[in-house]
């Protein structure tokens, strides 16, 4: 058993020279550096996470009792509408974009993205769109037809808020498309010459799959929303039955994007976890090609499952059966990943630090959401639980237990690289424990609630469900509390944490082969790969490798 020979021979030549350090004010400007943009995405989306979280706890506070006694029913509907919209379009999707922005050029040895100015434009669309959406609450006319916004209801109620919602989503969707273009072109065209497609880290495969999905599906959402806006303001009747329109067509257009959206929300973190687990288990990832291709398979299949959200909408039987089968199939590539990660850990030398704890939590919690997802694919069962708390349970297990735990794992893992400092491990573990307890306490009872007959999007419910709802509410308060150790830890460590060095995890991917934080141009010269990205435990003849610190290719690793 040898440890990786990284420290002995790797030379990281960038030492406080003209490549320079970032001024903190750069992070508030239109800066084309992908690292700045990545951090801008991450910090902005985290702020929206906190806002969405407050909305969630307001919803749960209302649901502590069966009667409507905390907010009015109209306000309540706005609360859950905005909660979901913010969490999806202003937290998870942009957070994935943030990591992609930060990591892709570093991982492939490039100096920046293919289109740096477009990249900055894509980010700067997000704060105004987000503020617009939040402003709708402040001006008292917020959207309240659910984040799905089905007509005719969305055309009848909270119309100003609905218009704001549509505009905000059109801008956010555009931002997502622009980001996807950048990621795809960069990954395909800007890898260092020594990095073939099968030497690329799995995070890049995942972002390739994500970007393809975003490019193909987001425009359809835009089209659907534009038609909805015409119905809203121009008196057309695309979806309005009183004019001969068909509300179900909206559902098809909406879900054609929104189902791929959930894969857009999870694939980046599948990729991130595929980086975290091998490094902290000190073992190669198990089944690199299988995991790489399963991302593409999920991406493709994700485009042909959308109508499983519409099983009770009056669609024909043949359509229900088709979408049931495609949805069931998508479990297979997902299972390949889960077993691959498990096998990566098996036999390794696992460091149970915060990044790895969140990664393990991700696998353990996501699998529960995946299981309930396969159940939902079965049409006769879905007919019973559609639009109930069973679905709410499923979606939160995959989105919170999956995406959010994945985001935290990635934050803890790449924090040293991004900030040059180590984040405090003790408080990271406190954060982890509070999160896991809060998450399960909030969302596990919801499975039973849905099965027993509690429908969703309601402010008042059958009193027989009171005790379970109280457990969910108190769990959500624990989740709120769990955020504070993280916020204080992140800020304090960023300012005063111990210096991290270039490669605190002894990792092998290229982002660890430069300074922390990286110099503005990432690497000096062009890096040359000497190992595969996951070659832990592999013997290399260390004498072969030399270190060069001139214009020659540098950042060699063994």
């Amino acid at each position, binding site marked *: 058993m040898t440890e990786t020979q990284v420290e002995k021979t790797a030379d990281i030549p960038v030492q406080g020279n003209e490549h320079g350090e970032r001024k903190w004010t750069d992070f508030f400007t239109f800066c084309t550096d992908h690292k700045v943009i990545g951090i801008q995405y991450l910090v902005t989306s985290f702020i929206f996470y906190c806002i969405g979280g407050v909305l969630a706890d307001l919803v749960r506070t209302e649901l502590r009792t069966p009667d409507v006694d905390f907010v009015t029913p109209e306000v309540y509907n706005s609360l859950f509408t905005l909660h979901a919209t913010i969490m999806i379009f202003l937290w998870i999707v942009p957070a994935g974009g943030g990591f992609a922005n930060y990591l892709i050029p570093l991982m492939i040895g490039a100096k920046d993205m293919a289109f740096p100015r477009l990249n900055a434009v894509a980010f700067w669309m997000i704060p105004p769109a987000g503020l617009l959406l939040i402003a709708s609450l402040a001006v008292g006319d917020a959207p309240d037809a659910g984040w799905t916004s089905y007509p005719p209801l969305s055309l009848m109620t909270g119309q100003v808020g609905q218009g704001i919602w549509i505009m905000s989503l059109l801008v956010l969707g555009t931002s997502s498309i622009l980001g996807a273009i950048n990621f795809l072109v960069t990954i395909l065209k800007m890898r260092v010459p020594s990095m073939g497609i099968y030497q690329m880290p799995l995070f890049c495969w995942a972002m390739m799959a994500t970007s393809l999905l975003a490019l193909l599906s987001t425009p359809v959402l835009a089209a659907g929303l534009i038609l909805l806006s015409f119905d809203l303001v121009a008196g057309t009747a695309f979806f309005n039955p009183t004019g001969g329109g068909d509300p179900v067509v909206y559902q098809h257009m909406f879900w054609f994007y929104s189902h791929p959206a959930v894969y857009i929300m999870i694939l980046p973190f599948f990729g991130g976890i595929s980086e975290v687990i091998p490094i902290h288990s000190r073992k190669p990832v198990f089944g690199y090609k299988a995991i790489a291709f399963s991302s593409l398979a999920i991406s493709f299949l994700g485009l042909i499952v959308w109508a499983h959200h519409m099983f009770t909408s009056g669609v024909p039987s043949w359509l229900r059966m088709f979408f049931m089968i495609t949805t069931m*199939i998508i479990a297979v590539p997902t299972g390949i990943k889960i077993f*691959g990660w498990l096998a990566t850990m098996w036999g390794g030398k696992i460091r149970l630090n915060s990044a790895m704890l969140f990664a393990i939590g991700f696998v353990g919690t996501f699998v529960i959401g995946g299981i309930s997802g396969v159940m939902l694919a079965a049409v006769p069962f879905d007919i019973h639980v559609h639009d109930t708390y069973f679905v709410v349970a499923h979606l939160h297990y995959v989105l919170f237990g999956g995406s959010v735990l994945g985001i935290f794992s990635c934050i803890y893992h790449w924090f040293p690289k991004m900030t040059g400092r180590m984040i405090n491990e003790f408080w990271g573990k406190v954060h982890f424990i509070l999160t896991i307890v809060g998450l399960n306490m909030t969302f596990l009872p919801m499975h039973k609630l849905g099965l027993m007959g509690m429908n969703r999007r309601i402010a008042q419910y059958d009193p027989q469900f009171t005790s379970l709802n109280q457990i969910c509410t108190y769990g959500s308060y624990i989740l709120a509390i769990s955020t504070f150790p993280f916020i204080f830890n992140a800020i304090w460590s960023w300012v005063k944490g111990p210096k991290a060095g270039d490669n605190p995890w002894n990792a092998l991917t290229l982002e660890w082969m430069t300074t922390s934080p990286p110099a503005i141009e990432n690497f000096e010269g062009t890096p040359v790969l000497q190992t595969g990205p996951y070659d832990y435990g592999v013997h290399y003849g260390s004498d072969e490798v030399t270190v060069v610190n001139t214009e020659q290719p540098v950042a060699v690793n063994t």
Partner: protein
Amino acid sequence: MKIPSSIWTLLIGISLTLVSLWYGQNHSLLPVAASDSATLVDGLFNTMMTISTGIFLIVEGGLIYCAFRYRRRQGDNSDGPAIEGNVPLEILWTAIPAIIVIGLSVYSFDVYTALGSINPHADHGGESHQSMRMSGSAMAATLSDKPQQVASVMEMQSEEVEKEPDMVVDITGMQYAWIFSYPESGVSSGELHLPIGKETKISMTATDVIHAFWVPEFRFKQDAIPGRQSEFRITPKSEGDYALICAELCGPYHGAMRTNVVVESQESFDNWIQEQLLASKDDLNQAIAINPVDKSADDFLAPYTKEMGIHSELLNQIHPH
């Protein structure tokens, strides 16, 4: 004496299977199944619960085992073994989930086609399934020269479309109530009453926004969409009082939009129809005149006393005549 790991694996596998099988049948997560269709759906769910429990225990158990057994020991800075994959194993864990989901798809397909139909006959050919007819406004009729769209809904008894239902009910959903009308008797009510064992054809629409008809004990749900009629058939098999819940967001009071489905004997149902007709008459005198004087006092008072919970036998005991 150390037990070989293969024996441990065997024992764990056996106990895992037993626990999954038991929990799949004893989860007590569902309400009572009040129709044969509901029982079929529950059978599917129980199977899925068994499989899910097994997968859950394997994955969570594996994670916890790894976190303990393979954690880094103090002072050990070396790497783990450079294992990159194992093709037979990967094939195995691709094939087994694939077989499971294919099996579940077939099982679900069977349940779906059997829903509401106890004896799936051979196809009678001709027009299949319930249809959804677009009843657009007059303006829409002139715009479109296509024949009315037909989309099938629940294939409950697709083979028996030819057969006349025992009863017909029209349902209209609106913010925030359901109106049930019984065209054969002219009754309108806010409660759905169904005679047990009889096949009722339901034709449903909404007037304003999308609602959904959901009876958890029947495991049945269908959206009520404005501008469309959706049709389905129900044959209830257990008497009782069940919640009928709106299951599509229809506005701020969506949570309050619920009523009852009362499944009762044919006789009880007929009495209820009579009472509804009575209650809907404007002129009460005229209503009373409907019941001729030749009815005995008990018979005459029966509908009113029943509502008070007093039966004629009780009256007889108190005041025999």
